């Protein structure tokens, strides 16, 4: 772009007042507002983790009291799951990209979309209030009767936060489903949709079907605490195990709410930096739907030792293996996509390849945990902690960072420093493995999770974890500085700096016009057509 020329109108410079942001109905601006809020929540959750990781470096209690420790790991779980992992990709990338990718000017219900952000913030405020008034010590799982009768902390406030923010997920899910069904550009058939859209679609279905169950469950806990309902409290004839069924009926599918959008990101980045169509497009697309569907019937694998029926456990075990099959299919197809590609190890691609490796370990250890006899030993140990961090951090957070780096030029029209972005990616990858791999071993050796003081035999593993976490923290800081500093650079980028396919790259500017496209959009090519010379023209 010529430096003397007035900058083109885009969604960022279309209004500079606070009001123009807070009352915007532009899906792109709402995406950026999610990004800002979510970064704050991520830092809060990360700080909590840093503090209790420090405590766990040695077996003895030295930095924190047991009560503070319990409140910190609870806060880490609640903030990271409900305010980062669940809304991260749909809230930021989904909002920003769904209309751009399908070639429309906004989501189907723009005002509802803004309302979703306010609901998310309201839920966040309740949770922050719970933290400021002294925290909550039930663990993010809110198990009864501890949460509903015995806990002496802010269960009601935090529960309300989770309850409220759930509606933001439901409404966003609804919005995306309608948008994807009704607002695709001419020629954008279902089988031409980017895989990111398929993943968002599958996620939205789970959000709409699953989240209300969590809302009801949390509400029952709040009622039991305030009004003394006997739903879960056995002294009143309630059943504490019923709570676990209700909770995991949502919270297992929620794992897919968190990871499926990440799968979508991985497919986009992988195709671009190997210049290949994703191998087995249909299989990758439908495996998202298969995971969403089967994912609803596996919740009891969290309850093999809970006193649920042995026969129920049998069914949940076998269904859990079945959900592994479509997941394996995705990994095989992504790997096959690289074959005979033209591979560039850019920062987003490094995150993506890191994702495949780490998610693979997370998935395979999931097979361990689905195995009934193994699960009995490993349930509620550090093995489980390591497993879900490989899926949630090694998988989801890496996918999230891949996506943020990949679409950063589109969002802000600026390129970050590629060298430092790569350094950040490598440091995070190594730091992550140092943090969480030792926990698999500590877990098989029998160290229970949520232990503030522990047997000294586990200390070497915990010490390694803490050292690894320091590296991971450094990697995240490098990444944050690299991205933020790019915003102040004068250098702008063209509309398609990575030569990617997709309407967001080829038909919209960087940053896009407030109305997304200045010319009518008609789709005449298949998804991921990297032989199309038009994508290599402008950069």
């Amino acid at each position, binding site marked *: 772009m010529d430096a003397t020329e007035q900058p083109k109108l885009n969604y960022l410079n279309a209004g500079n007042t606070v009001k123009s942001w807070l009352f915007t109905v532009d899906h792109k601006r709402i995406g950026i507002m999610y990004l800002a809020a979510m970064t704050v929540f991520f830092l809060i959750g990360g700080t909590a983790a840093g503090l209790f990781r420090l405590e766990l470096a040695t077996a003895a209690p030295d930095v924190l009291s047991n*009560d503070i420790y319990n409140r910190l790991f609870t806060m880490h779980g609640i903030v990271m799951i409900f305010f980062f992992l669940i809304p991260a990709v749909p809230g930021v990338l989904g909002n920003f990209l769904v209309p751009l990718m399908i070639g429309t000017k906004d989501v189907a219900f723009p005002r509802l979309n803004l309302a979703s952000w306010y609901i998310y913030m309201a839920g966040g405020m309740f949770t922050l209030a719970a933290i400021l008034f002294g925290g909550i010590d039930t663990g993010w799982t809110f198990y009864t009767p501890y949460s509903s009768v015995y806990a002496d902390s802010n269960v009601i406030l935090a529960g309300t936060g989770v309850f409220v923010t759930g509606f933001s997920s439901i409404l966003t899910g609804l919005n995306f489903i309608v948008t994807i069904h009704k607002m695709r550009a001419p020629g954008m058939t279902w089988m031409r949709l980017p895989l990111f859209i398929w993943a968002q679609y599958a996620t939205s279905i789970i959000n709409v079907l699953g989240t209300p169950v969590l809302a009801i469950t949390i509400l029952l806990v709040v009622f039991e605490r305030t009004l003394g309902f006997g739903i879960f409290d056995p002294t009143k004839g309630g059943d504490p195990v019923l709570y676990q069924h209700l909770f995991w009926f949502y919270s297992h599918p929620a794992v897919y709410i968190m990871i499926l959008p990440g799968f979508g990101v991985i497919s986009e980045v992988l195709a671009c930096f190997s210049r290949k169509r994703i191998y087995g*497009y249909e299989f990758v697309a439908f495996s998202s739907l298969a995971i969403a569907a089967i994912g609803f019937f596996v919740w009891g694998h969290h309850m093999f030792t809970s006193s649920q029926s042995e026969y129920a456990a049998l069914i949940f075990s076998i269904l859990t293996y079945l959900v592994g*099959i479509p997941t394996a299919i995705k990994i095989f197809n992504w790997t096959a996509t690289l074959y005979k590609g033209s591979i560039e190890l850019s920062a987003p691609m490094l995150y993506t390849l890191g994702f495949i490796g780490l998610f693979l370990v997370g998935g*395979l250890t999931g097979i361990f945990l689905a195995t009934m*006899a193994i699960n009995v030993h490993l349930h509620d140990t550090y093995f489980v902690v390591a497993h879900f961090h490989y899926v949630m951090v090694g998988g989801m957070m890496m996918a999230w960072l891949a996506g943020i780096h990949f679409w950063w030029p589109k969002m802000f029209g600026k390129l970050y420093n590629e060298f430092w972005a790569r350094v950040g990616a490598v440091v995070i990858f190594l730091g992550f493995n140092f943090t969480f791999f030792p926990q698999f071993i500590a877990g098989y050796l029998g160290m229970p999770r949520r232990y503030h003081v522990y047997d000294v035999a586990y200390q070497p593993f915990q010490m390694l974890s803490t050292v690894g976490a320091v590296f991971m923290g450094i990697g995240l800081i490098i990444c944050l500085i690299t991205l933020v500093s790019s915003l102040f650079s004068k250098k702008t980028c063209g509309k398609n700096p990575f030569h990617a396919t997709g309407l967001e790259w080829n038909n919209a500017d960087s940053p896009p016009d407030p109305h997304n496209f200045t010319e009518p959009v008609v789709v005449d090519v298949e998804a991921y057509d990297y032989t199309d010379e038009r994508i290599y023209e402008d950069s």
Partner: protein
Amino acid sequence: MKYVQTSPTDASTYASDVDSLYAFLIGMSVVFTVAICGCIIYFAIKYKRQSDADRPEPTKDGNLLEILGSVIPFILVMIIFFWGAKLYFDARIPPKDAIEILVTGKQWMWKVQHPNGKREINDLHVPVGVPIKLTMTSEDVIHSYYLPEFRKKMDVVPGKYTQMWFLPAKEGIFNIFCAEYCGTEHSLMGGKLKVVGQEEYEAWLNRRWVDGQQMAAVDSSDPTVAGKQIWDTNCAAACHTGRPGAIGPNIEHKFGSMRKLEGGDEILMDDYYVKNSMNNPNEHIALGYPAAMSAFKGVLNNTQMNQVIAYLKSASEVAAE
């Protein structure tokens, strides 16, 4: 210094069975991880972009990868499923000759009662070579009884009785952890499992003093005697009289037998059933009798209920001989 351990000491034959399955899973995971990561690294080097003008030939999708990619994992997970399920079911069904010990969890301790009434807190003494069955409940929140060296764990849930069993194969001292988060001092809730020789166990059971310290609340009276007293005054006097026309069934000597229920079902009269009937009498109604039993929850405490069970058990053993 000891070499770095990657699995806990195995204190029973079951533990080494679990470890074999675990080793199989590790082997499978290593194969998949090396294969996938190997491919990724190989492709990333071999097909590195040489110039910005590179335009790779599109690959044709084939179904072979999808078929192999579903069928091979499917076969593998089915093998693992049956293997894991078989071990799990073996581990759930206690042998008939197991010693029955009652465990009650409360924030933040384990209260243990042995068959002769002897009690201990947190620790558990058991004889080597004899299967041990734990019948467990909680007084407050959910806890979980975890014996890592035995690869066994079971949640301890308020309002119901859960059970687990294990066979201590060698003498030694092992960990007992609480695995389910139960509040402020969760990480301190635990003790030691002390597997001792048969004679030492007998001697320990009948000893009142250990190392000059009084054992916590040793109950020296025979629970069957106290149990009979409660049975006679509370149960047999008005209802389970054993005479024709009684309002409750004659069950004084029927412990361990199958009982017929209204609606055609049968149920085993065991610890759980007896205790549950005292707490929730209307859950199972004996065939031919009215649903008239009053609940003893709050009338008899946990210890007294256990004494009644001990008595019924001994009375049935006498009847069987």
